[in-house]
């Protein structure tokens, strides 16, 4: 049975998330953990903006908080987010990875090690290569991988970097992703 979805995105990510998260139903059975590169800005304003049309609860992830289904957790600015053995949140201020903190690779890798084949990884639009290694790691340990079709991505560098080094289970247009997540959550 699947337990969690991890989503990574950078440039154009707010628009991309806007096309996915509000489409997910209130009874969505998986936890969602997101890394969105937003520089040093505080998370508050975009969380408010995204929350408006959402049926799920959106929040900034807190240190040692237990990850629960039906909630969308965002990595706080300037901290990496990792998943502990007991499915709680760990934050880290260690050096940037791919010039990014939070880094998608850090989240994906630690989620892959913890959730193994109970994980879905989603990599969206972005202007750097963060996340490519991480989504490969998710696949390595049996997780389901979804990469946004570079043609629908506002910035294609991120999805292109991923499909250069791995073969995702699903290469989807942005508007197909939420539907696929709902389908997977019911199937597995």
């Amino acid at each position, binding site marked *: 049975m699947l337990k969690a979805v991890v989503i990574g995105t950078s440039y154009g990510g707010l628009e991309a998330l806007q096309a996915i998260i509000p489409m997910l139903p209130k009874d969505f059975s998986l936890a969602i953990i997101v890394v969105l590169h937003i520089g040093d800005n505080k998370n508050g304003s975009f969380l408010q903006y995204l929350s408006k049309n959402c049926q799920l609860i959106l929040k900034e992830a*807190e*240190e*040692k908080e237990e990850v629960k289904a039906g909630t969308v957790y965002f990595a*706080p600015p300037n*901290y990496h987010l*990792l*998943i*502990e*053995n007991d499915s709680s949140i*760990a*934050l*880290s*201020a*260690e*050096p940037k990875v791919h010039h990014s903190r939070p880094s998608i690779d*850090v989240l994906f*890798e*630690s989620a892959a*090690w*913890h959730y*193994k*084949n109970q994980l879905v990884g989603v990599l969206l639009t972005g202007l750097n290569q963060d996340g490519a290694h991480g989504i490969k790691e998710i696949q*390595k*340990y*049996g997780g389901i991988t979804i990469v946004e079709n570079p043609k629908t991505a506002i910035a294609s560098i991120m999805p292109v970097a991923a499909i250069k080094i791995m073969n995702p289970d699903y290469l989807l247009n942005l508007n197909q992703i939420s539907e696929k997540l709902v389908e997977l959550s019911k199937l597995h």
Partner: protein
Amino acid sequence: MDRKKLEILENIDIEIPLFLEAIFQKYGYDFRNYSNAHIKRRLMHRMTLGKFDSISQMQDKILRDKTFFISLLEDLSINVTEMFRDPDFYSSFREHVIPNLKTYPFIKIWHAGCATGEEVYSLAILLKEENLLERCQIYATDFNRKVLEIAKLGIYPTQDLEKYNRNYIESGGKQKLSDYYTLNYGSLKLDQSLSKKIVFADHNLVSDKVFAEVNVILCRNVLIYFNKDLQDKVINLFYSSLSSSGFLCLGTKESLRFTQLEGNFVAIDPPLKIYKKKINNA
């Protein structure tokens, strides 16, 4: 999924506690109650980098090769810092803590987990601008001796100077940051007048005891690497080290939630994690 890969992950969860036990037994450094996710990330990377097949193989090496242990110690110690990191914290410290400190004839401050020292000097600058530095004794400690050496020198690369300037201004700095350093050979050296009030010392929060009674403790972005039990233990240590009505400053993503002593502190600035020890009733 490949059964073999799953087994590698399962084994790692068995091997990591054994590995940390080996380090503790052999070298006395205790990482057994660090956050598991954090330790796993560091060890997995060291494993890939050193081309080891397993954590057990690394354990074999660590028991016999002290140089290897030293390099691993570096991996496990996070030394990311900057001058006036989280400028909001420093402006809140000015607003909420300084007026109180001004009523004391002599002030002792403990900066625990000071890494390479940028934040200690930032604090010294702030105290100087508030005309308090002369009355202060700052103890800055870390378990990593290598970073303490850098901290003692107070010489830093200039590559982040622009950021430091921005932070300083945002923190409510009253002068110019350049008043406090000299530039030389592409490095900046902080003024001696700041360091004469700072004592840098080797102290391990995990295994060492209280070493002084202090009025203020700063320990920012250290507890996030510990598990709940260790967080509780360290907060106890801080509680015992603080004088009555002393201040405790944690990192902005840290809290007292996992400590039994939460009720013994008052949050002075909840988002910026500045706490005050309640006056003892006894």
